């Protein structure tokens, strides 16, 4: 039996898929926005990743679904929560990881793991959508930027403003009011990033801040957030270009274990 496995991560914002080869090498991956038809998005994510890997679906031995929409991955054989998947994925890429910080579209998680990549303890933001990727999306929008632009811009700030609103929706009006007071958008952005990091730190402290931290989820692609987090922690954190895919990667790894466990 082939050992090619796939992991499909249906998040609140994006659907991701990773296809792993026999040697646990990433053969293909995909990233799409999730729309209203989650079942189809899952299919599309898988197809896109398979297309990149140039592998027909029949050769995939095992598919694992994860993320909020994991129960909609009808074609899969296993569902695992994204918490376990991010843990596994992060520990795969950075074996020394003991704390995973995942900031996605709608939630933020801090996951403490052991050397086997297993979840020891985790905490998630329990208070609405504040402090998540969506928060940044909304604020970027209010300032008239694309979400990809705001991180780098925030790095050019000189005097970060203080953002106190704990609500995503009202943060938007706070941003607007800063704009109307003539504040530099870069300073506002820096303030927004700092405020998310502050909230993230509070989650991290909930499970215990460990020496090696890996930052995952879509927001880890944001250089401003990486910088702000490192600044607050006073040391570097692991990030990888793959970090938005770590949930899918972890799911695939879980599947791989199943396949091998079954084989062995």
């Amino acid at each position, binding site marked *: 039996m082939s050992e090619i496995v796939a992991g499909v991560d249906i998040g609140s914002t994006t659907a991701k898929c990773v296809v792993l080869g026999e040697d646990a090498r990433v053969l293909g991956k995909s990233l799409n926005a999730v729309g209203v038809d989650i079942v189809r998005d899952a299919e599309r994510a898988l197809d896109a990743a398979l297309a990149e890997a140039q592998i027909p679906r029949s050769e995939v031995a095992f598919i694992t679904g994860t993320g*909020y929409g994991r*129960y909609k991955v*009808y074609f899969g*054989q*296993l*569902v*695992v*929560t*994204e*918490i*376990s998947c991010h843990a596994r994925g992060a520990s795969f890429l950075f074996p020394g990881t003991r704390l995973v910080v995942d900031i996605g579209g709608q*939630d933020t998680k801090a996951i403490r793991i052991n050397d*086997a990549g*297993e*979840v*020891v*303890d*985790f*905490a*998630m933001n*329990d208070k609405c959508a504040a402090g998540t990727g969506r928060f940044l999306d909304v604020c970027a929008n209010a300032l008239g930027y694309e979400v990809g632009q705001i991180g780098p811009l925030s790095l050019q700030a000189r005097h970060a403003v203080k953002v106190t609103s704990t609500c995503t929706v009202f943060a938007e009006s706070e941003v607007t009011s800063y704009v109307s007071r003539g504040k530099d958008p870069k300073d506002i952005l820096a303030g927004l990033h700092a405020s998310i990091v502050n909230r993230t730190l509070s989650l991290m402290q*909930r499970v*215990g801040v460990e020496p090696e931290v890996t930052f995952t989820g879509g927001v880890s692609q944001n250089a401003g957030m990486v910088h702000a987090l490192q600044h607050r922690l006073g040391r570097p954190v692991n990030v990888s270009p793959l970090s938005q895919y770590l949930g899918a990667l972890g799911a695939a790894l*879980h599947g791989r274990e199943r396949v091998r466990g079954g084989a062995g």
Partner: protein
Amino acid sequence: MAETSDPRPDGSGVSPSFLRDARGLQRKLVEEYYARLGSPDRSRPVAYMLVGGNLAEIVRSFGYEVVFPEIVALNCAIKHQSLDNILHAESMGYGLDVCGYVKNDLGLQDRDGRTSFGQIPRPDLLVCSFSGCYVYVKWWEALAESYGVPLFMFDVPYMREEHPRKEDIDYLVSQLWDLIHLLEKRTGRAFDMDALKGMLVESRRAEDGWVDFLRAGRLRPSPIEAYFESIFYMFPINVLRGTREAADFYGVVNEEVRARVRDRTYPLPEEKVRVLVEGVPPYTNYRTFWDFFRKWGAVSVVATYPKVGGLFDRGFRHDPARPFESIAEYSLGAYVNQSWPLRRKIIADYVREYRADAAIIHGIKSCRSFTAGQGDLRDWLNRDQGLPTLYIESDHEDPRYFAPAQIKNRMDAFFESLEQRRAVGAAGGPATA
């Protein structure tokens, strides 16, 4: 990890097969109670009372019918009627962050007390046992203003040491006498010590039976569901304490528990995880919540919530030989009237006595008394006690705060990680015996 997709995505009511006669009897008691409250020819005066540290026996001995708005509120929530009441209370000006019980009750009162399970009568007297929750004071104050009836404040000292001081007991007993004088004045009846003692005999019998039931959770596997099942069986001990029905009820319950052990009918076919549950239940969705446990073979073997009416399992008993002192001691023993250090000690004892593998803390957004500090408790359990602990949050009364997908996600991840670690333990050596 769960194979395949969830069979019941919405978790809609699956009737647990292990619940039998006792559950039927409990239903009957509830129905009769509300029928009595709502009956138009009701001649007895009505006293409102709070569950924690309540003085039901004394008040009943003067012929009062006792109404517990907290219990009415949780019944409304179970029957999906709380949101209407809450919205009504919000339009009266009660903010989003006010305790759901309070809002349900004040909203309901303002809508003439009509519920699907009976008409809630207006109070003639308000007895506030300030035992464990400051909101009690505000709530009863509001009722007193809207009904213009007397409010008796029974001030119960907060427990910071394991044993009460002499001054505490003196203070409480002296207040009990004040209440008796008030009741004598209002009813024109003389205090009847024998009637009170007779009730305390029944109370004590009920308390013994209730504790026997709770302690069944120590068995492995546990024949009882200490959280979800107790929610049902709390009714007699909290509402009907002092009556013969309540005391007899626990006889029936415990008979059934013994039968379960005999026949090996357990809450779940397989007890995979023994859980301690701390916190008030999400009554609006408690079935769904229960399903999240059952899916993972998690049985709650001990819970703190059923102790809000009194920590009987820690030794408090009403005692006809020392009527006043024992009532005073009892009133100190509501679970939320224990300081955090005492609460932590109780929980640590429970974990040991009931051999819990994990703890789930359910925080209530609108209840600070129970909830403020549960994060620290989680930390203490996880770190200092080495017990895997999950914290989740919703509300006891307000369905708007129950986010099933989020809660499920957390519980799945939590149990998944427990399973994973146990699997590794099994591979490395013998797992738990």
